[in-house]
């Protein structure tokens, strides 16, 4: 404590401090006196006026919802907009007497009294000056009635809200998605911090994924109301800022065509520009009416949609997983050529079956293909040839190539719920099923059956890479985002995603084979060639149920849900490809392949319409 002694003050510096302390006290006193005068002004001079304002509680905030961004197709055709909806609200504090006002409303609205009362109780608000929503979208006729009887309906107000409107019913419903009321869990997320209970947010597809862009910014006004709750003076206004508009990559005409071609079947179509990854059409069948979601759907309607066995609520392009079937042979062929197991000239005799272990593995052509090499094996989709090379390759090498071709991982499209598919390996089977890999299973995998699972989107990205000289792209659904005034906010750029594990020579062999599938005398898709356009691709039949025995008559009696799926993946034109397509028709593959005509017609429409050249 010795050091404190020398810091003690002498008389002179003590006076210096005292002087400064006095100045400080003076400053604080002045500040407090200013506060006092301000309070005197507010509470005495303006007190009466504030008392009046407080008695009526008449300054309110009315909120103006922002119009949601519009959605266009690649050619600027409007797909989704907003229409005015007249929503009826009541301000309980102003609706005096409440009972009589509600009785009057019941007559106009055609809604039972109990429901109106429940709405008021359930609003959960204890703040009675806030308007409570009674009925959405009352329509122009009821609006006219309500306006005409304004004086019998104190505290009742009609607000015009923009309501989402999907112009083409059921079209691109899975891609665009729909809106729904925000739920409790979503309200807790900071992502939705500006959204209030009862408001609609994107729940699926583009509407969900691009919510931040589409939503815009809420505006509102400060108003003074009279004792009836009617606005007498507008004090201040903040304009709502509309959400950003989206230009999709899809072509509405092509989309429509794809949906027409899928009508009456369950399945999916996806078309893509191979060089850019822009999705030209994305259809999933059956579809649903998006407007029903916006207008509010009853539990019963929702139940019907959910329990439909054809799964209308699923975007089959990205969410459904199927065995890839014969298109997978392209991957097996790449692996075999790259690993040096075969070359273009090696040939093999197909007697119609392949003996492995103590089992006979059948070729789809019972009589056999005779002498085949890699090109004719793809052209005629010979199973035996690929049994042989798969056995030589082994499961691990095949799965490595499948992964490198983009299977088993998400493509990276900007949509939620994308499925990853499955690339089976020996290690995976051990882990998943606890059983050792059987060598015979390699044969099934090599021709695209067995445990293999892919989405149509993965297949279109894969076939695009073949068309694209091996370059894989990330699929895009939004080409650009702009403000309501038309200023570009973001423009999507082509995003590369590595290359196929194939040399230019291998790819040339594959492309030649795929060309033959459609255009040669013995090709499996010869029936869908397009006049004047070199269409290229691969058919496939994915087994849902494996037929044992040889009785071919049994096929005709198979129940619908056990029938095989039909695949087609392809692109056109052969030189300088402009469109790649993947089509799956569920249970449409047993008699004739129902997928290939859809792909062919779509490519033809796209390439023959003038707008693209």
């Amino acid at each position: 404590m010795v050091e404190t002694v020398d810091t003690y003050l002498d008389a002179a510096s003590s006076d210096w401090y005292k002087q400064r302390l006095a100045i400080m006290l003076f400053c604080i006193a002045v500040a407090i006196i200013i506060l006092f005068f301000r309070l005197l002004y507010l509470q005495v001079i303006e007190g009466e006026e504030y008392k009046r304002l407080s008695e009526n509680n008449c300054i309110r905030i009315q909120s103006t919802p922002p119009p949601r961004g519009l959605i266009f197709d690649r050619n600027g055709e409007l797909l989704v907009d907003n229409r005015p909806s007249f929503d009826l609200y009541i301000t309980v504090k102003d609706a005096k007497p409440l009972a009589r006002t509600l009785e009057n409303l019941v007559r106009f609205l055609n809604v039972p009294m109990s429901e109106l009362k429940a709405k008021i109780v359930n609003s959960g608000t204890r703040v009675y000056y806030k308007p409570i929503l009674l009925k959405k979208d009352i329509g122009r006729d009821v609006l006219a009635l309500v306006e005409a009887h304004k004086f019998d309906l104190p505290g009742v107000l009609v607000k015009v809200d923009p309501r989402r409107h999907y112009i083409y019913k059921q079209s691109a419903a899975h891609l665009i998605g729909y809106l729904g009321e925000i739920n409790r869990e979503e309200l807790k997320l900071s992502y939705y911090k500006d959204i209030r209970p009862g408001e609609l947010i994107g729940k699926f597809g583009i509407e969900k994924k691009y919510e931040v862009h589409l939503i815009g910014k809420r505006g509102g006004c400060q108003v003074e109301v009279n004792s009836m709750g009617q606005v007498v003076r507008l004090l201040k206004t903040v304009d709502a800022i509309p959400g950003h508009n989206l230009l999709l990559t899809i072509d509405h005409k092509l989309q429509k065509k794809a949906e027409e071609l899928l009508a009456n079947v369950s399945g999916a179509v996806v078309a893509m520009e191979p060089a850019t990854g822009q999705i030209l059409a994305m259809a999933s069948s059956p579809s649903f009416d998006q407007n029903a979601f916006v207008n509010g759907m009853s539990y019963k309607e929702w139940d019907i949609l959910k329990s439909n066995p054809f799964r209308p609520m699923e975007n089959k392009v990205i969410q459904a997983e199927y065995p890839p079937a014969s298109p997978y042979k392209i991957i097996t062929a790449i692996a075999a050529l790259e690993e040096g197991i075969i070359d273009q000239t090696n040939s093999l005799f197909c007697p119609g079956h392949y003996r492995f272990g103590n089992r006979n593995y059948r070729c789809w052509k019972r009589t056999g293909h005779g002498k085949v090499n890699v090109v004719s094996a793809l052209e005629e989709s010979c199973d035996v040839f690929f049994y042989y090379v798969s056995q030589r390759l082994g499961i691990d090498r095949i799965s490595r190539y499948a992964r490198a071709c983009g299977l088993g991982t998400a493509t990276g499209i900007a949509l939620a719920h994308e499925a990853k598919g499955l690339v089976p390996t020996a290690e995976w089977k051990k882990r998943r099923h606890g059983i050792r890999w059987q060598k015979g299973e390699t044969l099934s995998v090599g021709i695209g059956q067995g445990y293999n699972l892919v989405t149509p989107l993965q297949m279109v990205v894969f076939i695009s890479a073949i068309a694209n000289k091996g370059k894989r792209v990330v699929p895009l659904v939004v080409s650009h985002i702009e403000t309501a005034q038309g200023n570009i906010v973001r423009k999507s750029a082509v995003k590369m995603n590595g290359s196929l594990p194939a040399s230019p020579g291998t790819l040339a062999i594959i492309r030649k084979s795929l060309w033959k599938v459609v255009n040669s005398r013995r090709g499996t898709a010869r029936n869908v060639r397009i006049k004047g356009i070199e269409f290229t691709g691969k058919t496939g039949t994915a087994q849902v149920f494996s037929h044992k025995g040889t009785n071919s008559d049994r096929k005709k009696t198979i129940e619908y849900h056990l029938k095989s799926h039909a695949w087609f993946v392809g692109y056109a034109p052969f030189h300088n490809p402009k469109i790649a397509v993947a089509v799956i028709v569920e249970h449409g593959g047993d008699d004739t392949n129902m997928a290939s005509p859809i792909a062919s017609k779509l490519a033809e429409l796209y390439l023959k319409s003038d707008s693209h050249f």
Partner: protein
Amino acid sequence: MFDRRLIKYFDWGLLWLTIILGLVGIITLYSAISAGANNPHEMFHIKQLVWYGIGIVAMVACFLIDYKTIEQWSHVIYTGCISLLVLVLGYGKLVSGSRRWLGLGPVSIQPSEFIKIALIFVLARYYSRLVNTRGLTIRELITPIVLTAIPFGLIVRQPDLGTAMLLILIAGSMTVFVKIERRSLSYIVASCTVAIPLVWLLLKDYQKQRILTFLYPEREPLGAGYHIIQSKIAIGSGMISGKGFLKGTQNALSFLPEQHTDFIFSVLAEEWGLIGTTGLLFLFLMLTACGLSVAHGCRDPFGIILAVGVVSMISWQVIINISMVIGLMPVVGVPLPFISYGGSSVVSMMICIGLLMNISMRRFMIK
């Protein structure tokens, strides 16, 4: 060791003022929450009483230990508070977009309330060794600037502009009190005049918008602007004698934002009128005078500067909070000392009182 003069020089005036302010706070808080929100779970007035209990323990602890002993530890206290602020940035609870609270089991503390006191300590220690009638030079000001800038930066990151600004005001008041050399002062003023427009140019557009809205709440008539109008209606409608205890209508209809924390003064003004508001202002003026008289009686520089820091902290908060609810200043989250609900705020205020008592009790101790 124990000296009877400690009791002789105990500052009873300060104690009485604190008790009265605490009671006014609890009563207003009770009114603020019971009239408006019918939410029985939010027993803020009971919780506040518990905080006052903790505050009294902290206060007693603060005047029992000789402040010169605390002086030796001031750097440790400062470093501890800074570490807590760093922790808040990493692990703090996210409440409406900012991280200010650190959860500790059932309670959460707001380290930014305590860094104010820690900063007062380190600055008082630093200045007490340099102070002279000529004033401080620029070179001597570098350390205080760094000491203030560290917590300032951390609090801005939370973000809590109100508290960050308060740190600068407290440090500034202490610095002006110990006097700055005239030439240094002109340098500081000149560099600020140059720096402010430069910083403005560097800011992003949305940051400029945010600052403008902060300065002119009328720019946001649906948010801060609306709150100010409602607060003014509440205060003005109290008139001279007020609407009476528990009779505030603005409060009852939940028109007031944050009625139990930052806007609690409006509740008091509505129910007790000009008589109540003037009374409260008078109490705060008395508290300031008491605090400064403690400094007046003290005879070592550290004690004087410490008392000045504490008084400036209390008075700045009073002035800023009241100015904000009566529409003289932008809305910043600064609580009203002793009245606003908030554990960390109550405890830190009680520590301040404890420190003033400490200095007062030991004014004649010479060894």
